[in-house]
């Protein structure tokens, strides 16, 4: 079968690539990108959004989370079949809010207005340029795509939770139990998960492939979220980043987050 031959050639190619990059990655250690797929001849889909380095800007001054707005979280969690678990310790979160003081522990001081210190800030996976989670994963179940998205393969994850330990931003959730009973409705456009795997935001890779912006971005009536290609200097996000003072979370760690904040 043609598929078999194609699959075999691919597997063989990737093995060579993986071994090659693997060896180099030990020497270079940090920016390893094993399993890097070769540029594909197949289109992701005719009208797919294609970028070189996707990023997100969160304008907390526009965000209405203080007034109880949960639009982005609801849209995201509905789109990705993220369950609502009753016990906080088992919670699964792709995008949620943390107080300013917890999000930017380096930027707070005691004379700051409580309104700022306690302001809710939307947090999600930072899709780091140099992601610690990818470095520690023992099976390449999580990796960085050429367009910068830190992706997950739930078929491959063994549930060791090393990525959750390695993430400095608490962006990863583990399925401590079967999530399905806690889903009010199932979105057929996206799989649910099985107990025992880790999950997180994937910058809506499945929506980008269909030419749609991430669900959180589209759902925000305040236009507080701007998504775009950081490699494109004419993109909206680049224009905004050049004109405002934007922060990233824990920049000293060298992870180079691609989620930026206006505070």
């Amino acid at each position, binding site marked *: *079968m043609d*598929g*078999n031959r*194609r*699959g075999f050639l*691919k597997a063989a190619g990737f093995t060579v690539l993986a071994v090659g990059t693997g060896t180099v990655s030990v020497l270079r250690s940090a920016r390893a990108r094993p*399993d890097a*797929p070769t540029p*594909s001849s*197949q*289109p*992701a*889909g*005719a009208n*797919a959004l294609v970028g070189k380095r996707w990023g997100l800007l969160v304008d907390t001054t526009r965000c209405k989370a203080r007034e109880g707005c949960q639009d982005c979280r609801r849209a995201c969690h509905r789109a990705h*079949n993220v369950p609502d678990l009753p016990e906080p310790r088992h919670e699964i979160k792709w995008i949620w809010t943390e107080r300013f003081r917890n999000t930017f522990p380096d930027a707070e001081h005691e004379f700051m207005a409580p309104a700022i210190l306690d302001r809710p800030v939307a947090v999600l996976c930072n899709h780091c340029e140099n992601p610690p989670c990818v470095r520690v994963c023992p099976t390449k179940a999580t*990796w960085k*795509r050429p*367009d910068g998205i830190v*992706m997950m*393969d*739930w*078929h491959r994850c063994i549930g060791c939770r090393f990525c959750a330990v390695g993430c400095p931003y608490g962006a990863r959730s583990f399925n401590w139990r079967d999530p399905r009973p806690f889903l009010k409705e*199932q*979105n*057929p*456009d*996206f*799989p*649910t*998960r*099985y107990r025992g795997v880790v999950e997180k935001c994937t910058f809506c*890779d*499945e929506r980008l*492939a*269909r030419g749609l912006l991430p669900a959180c971005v589209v759902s925000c009536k305040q236009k507080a979220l701007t998504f775009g290609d950081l490699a494109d200097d004419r993109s909206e996000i680049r224009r905004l980043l050049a004109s405002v003072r934007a922060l990233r979370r824990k920049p000293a760690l060298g992870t180079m987050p691609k989620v930026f904040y206006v505070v």
Partner: protein
Amino acid sequence: MYDAGKILFGLLVLAGLTTLPVWYNVARGKAGPQPQLTVGTTEKQCVLPTAEMRAGHMALLDEWRTRVVRHGEHATRTSGGREVRMSLTNTCLGCHAQKDQFCDRCHDYAAVKLTCFECHVVPKRSK
């Protein structure tokens, strides 16, 4: 080897027991019943010819999974030249709408546990 005779006899009995279903069918002189599948569509052609699908659908699904998840490719061309989305829930179950009369029947028959739908959603259809 001590007790070689007893050990060999025991092994023979074990081999006989495990292959019992085969001997049963041989003695009966005909093969066991085949599962009856409901294809569930009027579409003439699957993404590959039927014989290839029957023999190799798991390899195809595996390839689709790798391409979608790991390489970010979402569309593919069928052997008939149609462009389809590589999606188990939307494309495969889009035609084979009755999973319980298609996937499950054969898999139950062959006693091969199907884990796909522990995550992939089976759409509810009013039929």
